[in-house]
């Protein structure tokens, strides 16, 4: 066995060969799928629980509070306790609701975020599916989540939910454009949509430095648009607490509510890791071309740590947005997208294409 924290490729091959040595290829494939599924489920649960805790701590510090500090040291078991509470809560039956769709909606939301997560490279070789169209796949799959939100809002037979679902639909459909276009800016620079290649191309400089001005603009646009697409921060109109109580998930309780809750945090994690991968080099260490010694030291930090660190920083930025700004109004939200982000994005792509043609990038 060759377990290497800097490169998981050989480890994966070892597992694959080991399984194939005593199983038929079909069963080996099924076992591998099961292993990956279980690993992802565990990762999903752990990251979800941790993000909820992190959000509560971060917002507490921003608000001069200490946050959860009762369950366990520094309250680290708080979210687990909350989760157990949610599991034990009654699933309220809603009169006159469309039960099939009502029960289906949380699954659509969570499956969409789950599928998108599978394309993210966590470290070298630690990558479930490496599509040649990775970015397009992520955009495509994450756009499915809105169906769940729309179904949830409609099938709860609640007027607040319906308004929340409407808002969310308008919001996600329009902000998907900006997310796609800002990623396209980087695709123009990279010339590929495959995540592994994108990361590999940033070996001697992350794209945010390589593409300098247009890349930074694209990063900001991506950050804003993806915050909007995950229904977070100043763009949480779909669940606008002070207006619509809880928006589309007003009628959900117990584990079904937990699904929405978890999916929201996982979507945040997802867009943060996409941003980290596409703009900040994913698991690639920080390299400065020419400084060989410095680069060697940076290489000693495992890729997974780099990846988690970058993702955590972007998540922190999104939390900073959420806990600083007041909420936008629905028409201002659409104005922001159609009058500001989209034109800026289109011009930015042209700018980037020009930059690539002229070889002005580093």
């Amino acid at each position, binding site marked *: 066995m060759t377990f290497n924290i800097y490169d998981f490729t050989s480890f994966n091959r070892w597992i694959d060969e080991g399984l194939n040595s005593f199983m038929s290829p079909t069963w080996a494939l099924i076992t591998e799928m099961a292993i990956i599924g279980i690993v992802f489920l565990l990762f999903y649960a752990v990251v979800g629980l941790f993000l909820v805790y992190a959000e509560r701590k971060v917002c507490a510090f921003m608000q001069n509070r200490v946050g959860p500090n009762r369950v366990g040291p520094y309250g680290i078991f708080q979210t687990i306790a909350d989760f157990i509470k949610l599991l034990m809560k009654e699933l309220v039956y809603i009169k006159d609701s469309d039960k099939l769709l009502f029960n289906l909606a949380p699954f659509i939301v969570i499956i969409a975020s789950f599928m998108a997560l599978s394309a993210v490279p966590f470290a070298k070789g630690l990558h479930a599916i490496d599509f040649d169209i990775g970015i397009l796949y992520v955009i495509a799959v994450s756009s499915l989540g809105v169906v769940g939100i729309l179904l949830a809002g409609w099938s709860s037979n609640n007027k607040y939910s319906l308004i929340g679902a409407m808002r969310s639909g308008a919001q996600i459909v329009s902000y998907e454009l900006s997310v796609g276009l800002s990623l396209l800016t980087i695709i123009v620079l990279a010339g590929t949509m495959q995540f592994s290649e994108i990361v590999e191309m940033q070996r001697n400089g992350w794209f945010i430095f390589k593409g300098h001005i247009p890349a930074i603009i694209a990063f900001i646009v991506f950050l804003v648009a993806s915050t909007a697409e995950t229904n977070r921060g100043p763009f949480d109109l779909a669940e606008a607490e002070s207006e619509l109580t809880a928006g589309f998930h007003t009628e959900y309780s117990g584990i079904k509510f937990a699904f929405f809750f978890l999916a929201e945090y996982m979507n945040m994690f997802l867009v943060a890791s996409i941003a980290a991968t596409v703009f900040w080099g994913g698991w690639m260490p920080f390299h400065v071309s020419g400084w060989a010694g410095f680069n060697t030291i940076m290489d000693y930090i495992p890729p997974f740590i780099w990846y988690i660190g970058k993702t955590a920083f972007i998540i922190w930025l999104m939390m900073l947005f959420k806990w600083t*700004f007041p909420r936008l109004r629905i028409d201002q939200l659409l104005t922001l997208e159609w009058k500001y982000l989209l034109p800026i994005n289109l011009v930015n792509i042209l700018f980037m294409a020009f930059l690539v043609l002229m070889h002005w990038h580093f």
Partner: protein
Amino acid sequence: MNSFFKYFSDIFHGVKSLLIGMSVTGRYFFSPGQIVTQQYPENRKNLQMFERFKGEVIMLHDGNNQHRCNGCGICENNCPNGSIEVIPAKITGEDGKSKRVIDKHIYHLGMCTFCGLCVKNCPSNALGFGQEFEHAVFDRSKLTKVLNQPGSSIIKGVE
């Protein structure tokens, strides 16, 4: 052309104002020294209420288990909510005269709004405010209290 510049100056000022807002929350995030939360059950030992704090109405007793209440009932009359009931008793003093003393000074904490009129209007300053603030009980009847301690008597010379 003017609106063209306005478009960009709007973006610039908008982003600037957002950054200013983020600097406030960001600054507090990195200065945990400014946290104001009190850790309540842990700080119970050194939690000092202000001396005038109106926690509950009490009858002031001195070391000899003596108080200054003669049962005149002014506090009962002054209470807007009827949360005080004075039950007087008549005892025969040493000089043979019967005189009015307090039998039970009943105080319904659950009805009290802490307006302070009983304490202010007491002619012999028998009542005061206690510092106790943890009033939660499981049974409402426990909120009805007898303020004069058992076996207490009136301080001589007050009546």
